[in-house]
């Protein structure tokens, strides 16, 4: 009992450290951004800066769960494309927009469910290969459906989702939805027995299975959730862009994984939390905002995001191996 307590305490202190670091970085980047642009330090400026980016946030929340159980999903960007295309095509075919939105959600959840089904039911089939194939398959289906075209002309209320504000408060609608989702995910992961099982799976899947955790079922649910959130992201992204094309959201998988890992989620599983992930989301957005101010092209931003991702994973590894070496030296002495 006491051992357990000290373990959770230690873990708590580690996550605290990481999250404080993120907060410091956020403040640092905000100061730089404020120097670069005089419009940055205003209530509306910050709200708008944050809301532009948030469709990725939905994907980050569920990607954190996927990474915590020690898996990965690189098909999310393609699921966004397929969901968006299927929504746009069904709207063009005469389906009411509200139903088309449900179709997008169902498409996303369906793709995720299919991923999860293969990964959890066929032992030996890794998430890497399934989602790699999925990233080609889903975007390929989007291309088959729509070809090289774009579909636009959605009803005017649809653009409210990404661009609208709540009443006269200047709080973007998307931020409210995101905060709601983040709270649900946070409670699910940190305050329920189900959440503890997710961590148990990430730390040791075999031990988790033998202690009665329904590993296959949870994996199935998490991948389906990840697909569903990609569907949610597709709705907001399409609303933001005003049109749908098969090549939207390319490269999102890197950024979503990078944000989750930056938020303290370990890609080898078992570590991380929703608070850190949300802070990392803000940090990445401010970083992108700043880079946008100094006219960094999108391709170069991807280079920087890639370097950040590798750096975040490499540094703790090198640090811990140095620590181990020091301990070994001490023991020898």
């Amino acid at each position, binding site marked *: 009992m006491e051992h357990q307590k000290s373990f959770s305490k230690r873990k708590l202190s580690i996550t605290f450290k990481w999250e404080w670091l993120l907060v410091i970085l956020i403040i640092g980047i905000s100061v730089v951004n404020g120097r670069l642009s005089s419009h940055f330090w205003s209530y509306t400026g910050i709200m708008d800066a944050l809301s532009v980016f948030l469709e990725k946030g939905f994907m980050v929340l569920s990607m954190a769960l996927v990474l915590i159980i020690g898996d990965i999903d690189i098909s999310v960007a393609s699921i966004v494309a397929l969901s968006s295309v299927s929504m746009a095509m069904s709207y063009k075919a005469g389906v009411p927009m509200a139903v088309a939105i449900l179709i997008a959600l169902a498409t996303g959840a369906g793709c995720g469910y299919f991923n999860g089904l293969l990964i959890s039911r066929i032992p030996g089939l890794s998430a890497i290969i399934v989602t790699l194939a999925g990233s080609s398959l889903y975007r390929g289906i989007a291309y*088959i459906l729509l070809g090289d075209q774009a579909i636009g002309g959605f009803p005017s209320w649809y653009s409210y989702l990404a661009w609208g504000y709540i009443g006269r408060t200047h709080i973007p609608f998307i931020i409210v939805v995101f905060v709601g989702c983040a709270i649900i995910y946070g409670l699910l992961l940190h305050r329920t027995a189900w959440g503890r099982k997710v961590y148990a799976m990430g730390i040791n899947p075999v031990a988790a299975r033998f202690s009665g955790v329904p590993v296959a079922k949870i994996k199935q649910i998490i991948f389906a959730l990840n697909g569903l959130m990609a569907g949610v992201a597709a709705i907001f992204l399409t609303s933001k862009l005003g049109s749908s094309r098969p090549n939207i959201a390319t490269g999102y998988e890197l950024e979503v994984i990078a944000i989750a890992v930056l938020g303290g989620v370990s890609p080898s599983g078992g570590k991380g939390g929703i608070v850190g992930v949300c802070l990392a989301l803000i940090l990445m957005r401010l970083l992108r905002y700043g880079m946008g101010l100094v006219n960094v092209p999108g391709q170069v931003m991807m280079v920087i995001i890639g370097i950040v991702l590798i750096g975040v994973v490499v540094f703790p590894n090198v640090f811990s191996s140095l620590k181990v070496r020091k301990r070994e030296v001490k023991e020898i002495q």
Partner: protein
Amino acid sequence: MTNEPAKTKKEVAFSRLPGFRELGIIIFIILISVLIGIRNPRFLTWGNFHDILLDTAALFVLSVGMMLVLVTGGIDLSMESVLALTGMVAGMMVKQNPQLSPLFMLLLGLILGALLGSITGLIVAKGRVVPIIATLSMMYIYRGITFIISGGKWINAYEMPDSFKGIATERFLGLSKLIYIVLVVYLVFYYFVNHTRIGREIYAVGSNKEAARIIGINTQFITWLVYVISGALSGLAGVMWVARYASAQNDTASGFVMTIVAACVLGGVSITGGVGTIPGILLGSITVGIINNALPMIRVSPFWKMALQGLIILVAAIVNIAITRNMEKSQLKRRVI
């Protein structure tokens, strides 16, 4: 003592398996060729076959590199970007200095690719980053660098000297020079993988990393090495690609990593490591090449290619697992008797 007979039987089963699966692929290739030939007789001509080989040349080379990485249990998504970056550098160099010899350009591709691969290898082996995350990042990083050095511009056919384009267009004994490059790569790697110590160590690391480390194999070095090799081969393929299509672009081979993985998985390479043969990926690559060539010939829209590739990877991976499981089952049965 009791283990010894089981081990020999295991070896028998292993030697039987590749033959069985390669025969399966050959039958599949013949079947698909005949079916497409019926719909479009032009498919079954020597000229078209030569075209298929030319278009698949880069894939042949790339799948060797990917196989070695997969055998160690990793994956290298950055190959397509290394290809694009070296292709762009090679294109820019021959644009400025048209007198450079094609052989020098091929060597340059190898070396530059090996350098880029060694960075990825260091991150995976020394930095202990999960291969998929490291190579996904490097994929975007190298793609971005390609964009930066080219300034978003293309290198077009008229800017390249004929000697450079000759790598693909010049023929020797009726076959394009590209095909001889592929041949050399396959002979070298067939020998390397099967008959050298380091080649066998790659398989040892992939089969059981911990055991390999304990018997004294430098697993970090082997892990690093496979990324260097896959980088070098991507660089070589980059020069071949630019010479073949006579243009270097920022999005050269974008998404091509799926094709490489499809060729490897079709050829029986296991994603979990330890399994994969040179004849296997030769057949896997040619199958993917034939399918890609045949789609326009039977008037299937090119938009199908992407989805089809995803499907091929999925089905082939599942078939691989089913075969392995059957094999293990029959082994167990034999052990009981």
